[in-house]
């Protein structure tokens, strides 16, 4: 039932996306032909600005320390050790990635408006949609680099432990590298979806409201199965509200493959593809709606 409803939602969503893209073709058409260099310039500026912020550097160092500290759990047997490092490592990547996504994306547009750094840019031949997309692309690049650094450190830790730990007859240290890389990549895709939704909130809200909205998105998005369970146990308006949350918020937990990878269970590719399709749909709708809202926002 749930899978069928989800497919219907997916289909309806795709139709809405196509309709919105057609209706807003003037904005997007220009953005794609005229605006790509502007989008890229704004993205590059966003990345360069973030690189010089000490907070980001401090977070990356902290995450590296946390990941390298995973090598201290030597009292476990090799198999348990590998499971623990992979699970903790991927959890660290997902959690810090989400925190960074919220930190970066929630402040991006509202801060530009509050600091008025937006004014000189919008006085130049740059459409608001281009500015928004440039900021989004910049956020994706920053998050991509950070996730890549964290993943490389985790892989390094796994390889180091693999070379140091002596396998036992009934317990082997398996770094399970390819699935680990896959799980990290899926975590990054979840961040991309979350960031797009945060951009949507920030296109109409202040910094504080965006941060609150972003945290809610993360929490609700990570508890989608609980919401679905809850919807079967309640009735009336509560059921409608629960289902509304279930369908409005992207199922971020669909991108979570930690359990499968750390327990060496095969990853379901259809599940991953479904998660990516739905995620892409949410991200596109969020960005299109954000561009429409931001285009009419008084700054």
């Amino acid at each position: 039932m749930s899978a069928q409803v989800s497919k219907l939602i997916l289909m309806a969503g795709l139709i809405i996306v196509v309709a919105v893209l057609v209706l807003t073709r003037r904005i997007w058409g220009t953005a794609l032909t005229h605006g790509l260099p502007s989008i890229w310039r704004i993205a590059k500026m966003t990345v360069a600005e973030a690189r010089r912020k000490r907070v980001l550097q401090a977070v990356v160092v902290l995450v590296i320390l946390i990941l390298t500290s995973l090598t201290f759990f030597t009292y476990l047997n090799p198999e348990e050790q590998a499971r623990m490092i992979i699970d903790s490592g991927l959890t660290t990547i997902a959690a810090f990635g989400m925190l960074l996504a919220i930190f970066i994306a929630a402040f991006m547009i509202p801060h530009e408006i509050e600091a008025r750094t937006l004014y000189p840019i919008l006085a130049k031949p740059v459409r608001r949609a281009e500015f928004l997309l440039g900021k989004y692309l910049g956020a994706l690049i920053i998050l991509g680099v950070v996730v890549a650094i964290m993943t490389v450190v985790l892989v390094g830790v796994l390889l180091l432990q693999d070379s140091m730990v002596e396998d036992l007859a009934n317990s082997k240290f398996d770094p399970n590298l390819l699935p680990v890389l896959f799980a990290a990549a899926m975590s990054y895709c979840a961040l991309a979806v979350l960031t797009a939704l945060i951009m949507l909130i920030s296109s109409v809200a202040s910094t504080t409201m965006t941060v609150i909205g972003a945290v809610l998105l993360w929490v609700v998005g990570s508890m989608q199965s609980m919401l679905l369970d809850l919807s079967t146990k309640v009735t009336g308006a509560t059921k409608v509200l629960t289902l509304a949350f279930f369908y409005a918020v992207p199922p971020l937990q669909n991108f979570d493959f930690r359990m499968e990878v750390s327990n060496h269970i095969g990853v379901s590719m259809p599940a991953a593809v479904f998660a990516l399709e739905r995620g892409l749909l949410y991200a596109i709708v969020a960005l299109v709606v954000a561009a429409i809202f931001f285009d009419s926002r008084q700054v």
Partner: protein
Amino acid sequence: METVLQIDGLTKIYHSLFTPAGVKAVDNLTLAIRPGETYSMVGPNGSGKTTTLKMVLGLIFPTSGTISIFGKDISDLSVRERIGFLPEDAYLYDVFTGEELLDFYAGLFGYPRKRRKALVDELLTLVGMQANRKVPFRECSKGMRQRLALAQALVNDPEVLILDEPTSGLDPAGRHQMTRLILELKRRGKTILLCSHFLAEVEEVCDRVGILYRGALVGEGTLAELAGEPTETVVATAGLESAAAARIAQMPQVLNVEDGAVRLSKATGDQLWSVLQAVHDGGGRILEVAKPRLSLQEVFVRTIGEVQE
């Protein structure tokens, strides 16, 4: 007459929970700026100057009325390729250096790297920031920031410059430098729309002035038009005896005699001649006879006073 910027019946009303009826920030404003002209909007705080500029730039949207630049709406990208904007405070990214900032803003016009490099050099020289080109913006003084902000407004060699309080927060030397720069841009034929609180500088650079009060245009014209014909005559004297000064002060049309200066209002030639004769007879020397025009400051105070009455 040909106009570069045309504003017709512009009104902006802000609504909020506490003011459901709305607050009128700009009230049916109509004005036109001609090519090569330097036009200044002056007015007390809250008179709608910055709100008007923000609507001109498309940052906020009018409740009613129209704005056109070169006959087109500001949302047209070709218009924004021909304008430059200096915001009230230098709202630029503070982690970057002057040359990085200018390179970024020039890049938004799609200029290739070689052209951007030459442009950055040229602009840094124009605003006197060549020596400080690698200083991060957050470490720049207020004057340096303002000059960089002006440079970013000039990256596209705009035909129209919109300057919001360009000398705000600057020390006297900084204000003088900025005024020189604006005069240089005016000499180069730029059309300039300027908002400022410093009326002496406005007087120095502007061709026409619009006086805004509570969002409405309450006076507009050249300073000579706004000030009208001078009605006072001032006779500057030296060595005038005090008894003679007291006698002169009682003469027809004489307003007062202070610090050796005799001020007359609407005096005829004969009345002025009598005063000059009395100065001579009172042992004084005549240094200058002048009919001073009202300053912009005086015109401004008079106009606002009339509206308030």
